[in-house]
């Protein structure tokens, strides 16, 4: 499944994350900004990759601006952004 259009989900409030997706060629590019990057950067990346894989998204750009979201929040925001970016016509 490909990202068809730019879409986003979540917010920049504390404990949330703003996830922006956009179409792109080649491999899935993941860009992470986080208030807990030194502590959780790798874990955040892994979660984004997993959600994308589960949804069959293999190409495009995912940018995460994380404000200390718990893993469940992060996964939900990535899932919503990808759904919004991949569904035909919204």
């Amino acid at each position, binding site marked *: 499944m490909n990202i068809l259009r730019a879409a986003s989900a979540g917010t920049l409030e504390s404990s949330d994350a703003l996830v922006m997706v956009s179409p792109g060629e080649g491999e899935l590019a993941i860009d992470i900004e986080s208030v807990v990057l030194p502590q959780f950067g790798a874990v955040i990346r892994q979660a984004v990759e997993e959600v994308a894989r589960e949804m069959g998204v293999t190409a495009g750009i995912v940018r995460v601006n994380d404000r200390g979201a718990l893993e*469940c929040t992060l996964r939900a925001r990535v899932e919503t952004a990808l759904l919004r970016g991949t569904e035909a016509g919204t």
Partner: protein
Amino acid sequence: MIRSLLFVPGNSPAMLQNADIHGADALILDLEDAVALKEKDGARALVKHAVKALNFGGLPLVIRVNPLGSPYLEDDLLAMVPLRPAYLMPTKVSGAGDIQRISARMAEIEASRGMKSGCVGLLPLIETALGVENAFRIASSDPRVQGMLLGAEDLASDLGAARSKAGREIFYARGRMVMAARAAGILVFDTPFTDVDDEEGLEKDAGFAKSLGFDGKAAISPRHVAAINLAFSPTVVEINYAREVMAAIPKGEEAGLGVVSLHGKMVDKPIVERAKRVLAAARQLGLEGEDE
């Protein structure tokens, strides 16, 4: 025992992750009014992931879904039923037919997931004039329905009445709801008090609801939970009186009296039943340790 049900906006991670620390007996995770139309999908995903990952202190979860006829209910049911919350809360329920349609769809989803049919209960929100008039039919429409909540804001608007703190405009609806719930043998919860800062008003409102027979009350703010719990817990006076009642019965029997009396008042069956209910509640709430 559910005295307080705390509303938690379904699209707020900060509120969701700490929803269980405020002392509420149950949580209402809200996909309806607390969520903007454009964020319905986001809230649904967030609640889904949160319920899977967090245990919410083991509290019973109620998920408030969007109304029948809205474009969101089907997706809500598809995403929420598999999470096995204690209850879904359908909104703007106006008749038994509404419940039966939702229940049938839930049964299909349960079956498709290999879940036991009927394992997710319903706690409908009654917030229209028609819903109040049909309260008993709704309460007895389906075995899933184990309780009802009165929603006074929408109801007042439906009635064309101004909503007030005194609540005269919902007096009939409150009485009717309690009557219907008791007749159907289900729980009944009162509408939330909407002034977050009026502690005294809340105490009065909750006390009044309890006096009408409500089992508990919803809260829109964590700050309301403690007062609601207090209002719907048996008081020390009630517990002590219930103990006296229970102690008086064997004494009366020993004395061979047909009628037992306590403080000059006859202790008859309804009084004994009430005493038993008070003591059961006290036991559940751990309030019995007050005596010797």
